[in-house]
């Protein structure tokens, strides 16, 4: 056995390319055999020795894969300042990916939740299925992936402040589209409070959902329990949960979560 076959031992990969997505979020590209075999919704855990370890959704799955990083913490700041040729460390990929249901999908993502949906949109397109993508951000500057998405599906742009496209929170725009009855499944990568609101609409219309969740993760492998939501572990059962699973943990969704030390705290909106 080669130590590199240990999927949960960080392996060094060289950044082959850095793409500035919107003056804030950066996509870091790298060659990694494990990531190139991932499925949309799988995530990796990125380590910067001496700094931090951070779960990251895989935004592009290919011979060169990518993660797209938003600078919200010391570790993500450090990642966003990295250059081609620098080294980052990965373990994973982890988690249960999105599963393709239905023929006409609605995808909704905002900010850092957009990453796995980019990979998913490409995957849906490769199966020649139709999809509409609500590309959301708080303000126009937050919007990313537009051109890439436009090649794969119909893109509906929206911002909370209305600086571009439709105006409103992602859930507001999404619920409007869900209401027109055209779609047979909703895929969403948003904050939990937004997800909660979309779920209520989808349930009323008996429409299946697949939600990509993010909760604090200490281990990523199903050992520590910090990522739990109800009876589920976001790192193992998720990050993508389906309608049945969301129903079971709905009391917690967008309401409270655990810290890495196990304390219960309210979920914040971003």
């Amino acid at each position, binding site marked *: 056995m080669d130590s590199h076959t240990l999927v949960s031992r*960080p392996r060094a990969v060289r950044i082959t390319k850095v793409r500035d997505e919107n003056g804030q979020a950066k996509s870091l590209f790298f060659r990694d055999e494990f990531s190139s075999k991932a499925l949309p919704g799988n995530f990796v855990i990125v380590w910067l020795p001496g700094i931090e370890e951070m779960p990251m959704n895989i935004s592009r799955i290919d011979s060169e894969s990518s993660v797209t990083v938003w600078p919200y913490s010391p570790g993500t700041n450090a990642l966003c300042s990295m250059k081609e040729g620098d080294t980052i460390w990965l373990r994973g990929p982890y988690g249960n990916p999105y599963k393709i249901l239905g023929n006409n999908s609605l995808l909704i993502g905002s900010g850092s939740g957009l990453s796995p949906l980019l990979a998913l949109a490409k995957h849906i397109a490769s199966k020649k299925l139709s999809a509409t993508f609500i590309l959301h951000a708080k303000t126009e500057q937050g919007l990313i992936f537009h051109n890439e998405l436009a090649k794969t599906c119909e893109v509906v742009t929206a911002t909370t402040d209305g600086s571009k496209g439709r105006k409103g929170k992602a859930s507001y725009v999404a619920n409007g589209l869900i209401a027109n009855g055209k779609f047979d499944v909703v895929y969403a990568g948003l904050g939990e409070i937004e997800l909660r609101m979309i779920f209520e609409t989808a349930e009323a219309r008996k429409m299946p959902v697949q939600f990509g969740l993010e909760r604090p993760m200490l281990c990523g492998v199903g*050992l520590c329990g910090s990522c*739990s939501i109800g009876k589920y572990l976001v790192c193992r059962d998720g990050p993508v949960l389906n309608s049945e699973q969301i129903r079971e943990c709905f009391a917690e969704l967008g309401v409270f979560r655990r810290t890495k030390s196990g304390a219960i705290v309210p979920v914040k909106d971003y």
Partner: protein
Amino acid sequence: MSQEQISLEVEIAELSLRNPIILASGILGHSAEIFERIYEGGAAAVVGKSISLLPRDAYKPPAVVEVRGGFLNAIGLGNPGAEAFVQELKKLSAKKIPVIASMFGSDPEDFVKMTKILDSAGASAFELNLSCPHVKGVGTEVGQDPDLVTKIVSATRRNTSKPIFAKVSPSSEILLQTVKAAEDAGASGITATNTIRAMALDVESGMPYLSNRYGGLSGEALHPIAVRCVYEIAEHTKNPIIGCGGVVDWESAVEFILAGASAVQVGTVLASKSIGTIEEILNGIKGYMVRKGYRRISDFVGLAHSGK
């Protein structure tokens, strides 16, 4: 012998369990919902994450890294404190799910207070973590000090009539002294073992993987060491022993029982395989008992000592 004639029930120090499989401390935290899932998945009881009187922060990630044969972890005994755990305990005891409350600390007074809080909240038993290998002052350093072990176990004993298990370290020359100190002070049994102090380095950065540098080794690499501990302890005590460390299938669970354990804890395998492994282990044990003609687990507890 048919499956129907077989009972998996065990009685360890007045704790009646429907089978010998228990969730190990710290694995999957202490959420009542997760514990209920583990119980529904087949485990007879769960041990809570080790609790201190006051909340304590976990170490920064990386807190876990895979090595050949298992994982190193340095979670740092992060926990929200005894009062926070009461909420979970109450939910679980309402559902009659046996919870063994794990406690750590270095001040016997803390154990007095925690025992009172957790006993009245419905803990079925207590496990004293005398053996965490990666937190200064409250882990193996306690287990190494027989006087302190005596004080902590006595403090706990005076404040509960429920079973108390002392959890020991596999990496001790004075293992049997610690066991004796704990039992003399009123421990009902021993959990053997905790993880063993270890380290892994990244050759590219030259840095330890874990933010805490040192961590505890769990998983199958630990199994032959833990089996040895159970066997050695069983040579010296009649009290019940709970085996823990590297159980990955029914055979590794049965090894513990043959070595002298009345029950077996599972931890890392839930990550390296899945929660479904609990049921596979139970089915494997049942098949073994049918084949061997054993009606109860106690029929083969400690059998490996007879042929020596």
